């Protein structure tokens, strides 16, 4: 059983990392696209008013100093607070935030468990009674992140389930997978909560499991904690088949589309990329495009001017 748990956990982590990476690389390697920005753009100095560099006379003569950091900070803040939802969709926010806080903290919990295991292997006991500050710090951090994650995530799962069921607008667009997701996450968080509350109030079993995971030496584990570990591993395997990646792809959607106001300068990388795609063959079928599968974008969009003026 313990060996199977170790294999499952490793597999789950490798699987999600590989799947997410493949998906992200696929998105990142898509062709350069035409500009489709939307204001306000966070990096602009006057972004509060939605102003852009186009508000300056002959802006192309000026040096543009742009930093993406402002935008990244905004997006990170959004990932932890969901301010847009708070402003515009308060009831949804009330359940959405705890759900996501559940995810964030459960990830933090596992990272802490991993480092906690390293600390234990290094000879520092992790417990409330540890003589080492490091050991006590890890003990309380693991306990807090774990427990808050279980409570918050379970509350969010139930809340979202109810919200999507009773809100007619949300229900109309819901799919069985939406409901399955809420129930699945509820099972993950609730199993953790159960294991902590009824079986292992200090989460020592979890710490031992992680130590065994790192050292590849299986340890006996109670069935409640094992259930949670299995559910969480299955959840990791399931995640790539959901829209969960939006937590990361929103950075692309903002930084590479919505806030992408990079001009096409002569000799720039953008220009080189665009030229490459302009020479690709096109196969659209409408008559006016005159595509034959061989002619490229350039061939099809650079028409000779008619001599109407002289006529």
């Amino acid at each position: 059983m313990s060996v199977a748990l170790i294999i499952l956990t490793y597999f789950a982590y490798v699987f999600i990392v590989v799947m997410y990476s493949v998906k992200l690389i696929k998105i990142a390697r898509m062709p350069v696209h035409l500009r489709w920005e939307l204001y306000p753009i966070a990096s602009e100095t006057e972004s509060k008013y939605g102003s852009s560099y186009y508000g300056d006379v002959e802006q192309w003569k000026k040096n543009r100093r742009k930093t993406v950091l402002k935008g990244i900070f905004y997006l990170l803040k959004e990932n932890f607070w969901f301010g847009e939802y708070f402003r515009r969709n308060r009831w949804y926010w009330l359940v959405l935030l705890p759900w996501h806080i559940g995810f964030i903290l459960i990830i933090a919990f596992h990272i802490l468990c991993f480092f906690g295991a390293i600390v234990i292997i290094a000879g520092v006991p992790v417990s409330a009674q540890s003589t080492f500050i490091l050991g006590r710090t890890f003990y309380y951090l693991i306990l807090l992140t774990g427990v808050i994650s279980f409570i918050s995530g379970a509350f969010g799962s139930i809340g979202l389930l109810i919200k999507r069921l009773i809100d007619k607008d949300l229900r109309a667009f819901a799919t069985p997978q939406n409901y399955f997701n809420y129930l699945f996450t509820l099972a993950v968080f609730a199993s953790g909560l159960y294991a902590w509350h009824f079986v292992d109030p200090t989460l020592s079993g979890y710490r031992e499991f992680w130590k065994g995971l790192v050292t590849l030496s299986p340890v006996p584990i109670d069935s409640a904690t094992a259930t949670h570990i299995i559910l969480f591993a299955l959840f990791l395997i399931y995640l790539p088949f959901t829209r969960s990646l939006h937590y990361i792809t929103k950075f692309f959607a903002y930084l590479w589309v919505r806030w992408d106001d990079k001009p096409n300068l002569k000799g720039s990388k953008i220009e080189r990329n665009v030229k490459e795609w302009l020479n690709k063959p096109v196969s659209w079928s409408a008559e006016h495009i005159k595509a034959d599968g061989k002619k490229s974008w350039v061939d099809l969009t650079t028409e000779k001017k008619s001599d109407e003026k002289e006529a």
Partner: protein
Amino acid sequence: MKKRLKLTDIAKGGDAPLTEINLDELTPLPPPYDKVEEQPEFKRLTEEQKERLVCNLDGVVSYAALPKPKNKEEEKKYVEQFVSGLKKLLSKENNWTFLQPLLLSLDYCARCQTCNEACPIYLASGKNELYRPTYRSEIFRRLVNKYARPGGKFKAKLNREDIELNWTTITRFYELSYRCNLCRRCAQICPLGVDNALIAREIRKLFSQELGWAPKELHEKGTVLQLEVGSPTGLRPNVAMDNLEFLDEEFSEALGIEIKTPWDKKGADVLLIHSAGDIISFPEGPISFSVLCNAAGINWTLSSEVGGYDGVNYGVFYDDFQLAKVATRHAQIAQELGVKKIVMGECGHQHKAFMTVADRILTGELNIPRESVMTFLEDIVFSGKIKFDPSKNNFPVTLHDPCNIVRNLGIVEPQRRILRYLCPQFREMTPHGIDNYCCGGGGGLSVMSDVNFTDWKAHVAGRLKLKQVIDAFADHPDPEVKKYLCAPCLNCKLQFRDIFDYYKVKERSGIIFGGLGELAVNAMVDIKKPLIKWEEE
């Protein structure tokens, strides 16, 4: 109780409309337009029209030429074409232009419905479910997943996302893609960066680029005419020159100042590209810029090349190829003239199409600096070369922000600095700037007028804007107090013309509309007589 519209309803019911417009369900208008019984009647289709036309969405027809299949084989052919278009939208070679933005919007929507409350059409319609930005997008998402991705049909069944693709679905979907102004308010508030307007435009692209379906005003009489003749208005080069020459003379006399518009001046600093629609319908606009450029001593020119005197680019609304052709044409003309920069006329979508969307298509020598008329005008007004007397504009003025200039280009303040300086009674409408409401003509809708489409534009799409305009002048409801709505965009003005005619806004509220250049000229000390006329002559 009204039956809720389901996503799967799009495929059901054959020729019967999914919904209908009832005036008493629409968002109420402020006085004196608040009585439903006094509002203009919504033009209903006749039995003969219902028989002849495809009108299965909302009882409104934007494209009378939508074909009806004669038999099952023909229907199958159209369905196959649609599926083929879906696949091409997902292919790098055919849709590199928008593939990444499209997939980020298709695959990562959380279906939270937050965006609906931002849509002026959805709100104006009294929250008619058909007009939710998400209704269109979610159906498209499901069609893409089912018909253009591996294992799609099985997954669609498993996840109950199964939408049937038939003639009804396709034709309704075509019409539904033209119930969006592409104003992108919905995209602006999406926490995940999902853009429903982009999806609407991609759907239009599919129909245009694969099936050859597009509103005649945008395609046949739009970009095609522009590339062949010079302008969607049908205005040919020599006629455009004659018209402006005549206007130069007429306004020279009317304003008591000599006006001469230069044409085809090689090596000029500035190529100004107006919209030809302005020359025909709102000539005070182009004339204002002739007056201002000359008075400021600018070395500028217009072009009489085919397409060079009309800056509109309807391709931005529905077709990447037409967009690229028109933008390339404009750039080639500027290159041949050897100008230092191209200045957009007062036209929102021209700004967006030429300054940003087509930016990456214009490579090498075609990449000529392009500037907004807003900053160009601000530079002129504050250059000190022209004397202004703001008291000449001492009447209530409000500003309509064209979406393509504010939300899509980030040019917010230059036009306001001009108005604050030249118009003592300038006031903002609410909301404004990047949060503005579309005039209702955005996304190419302002030039579309097939069958009863104008009724829909005036009653639904432009409703919140009309409300905003009336509210902005709430302190002066008396029609005797003359008020000016500054709308620095041809398409917005065309939409306002429709709405104002429809509701008799000038007569009932004393509001007229015009551009920004007109206000600048009207305030010039050197002008003997006012440019802005409150009564038609």
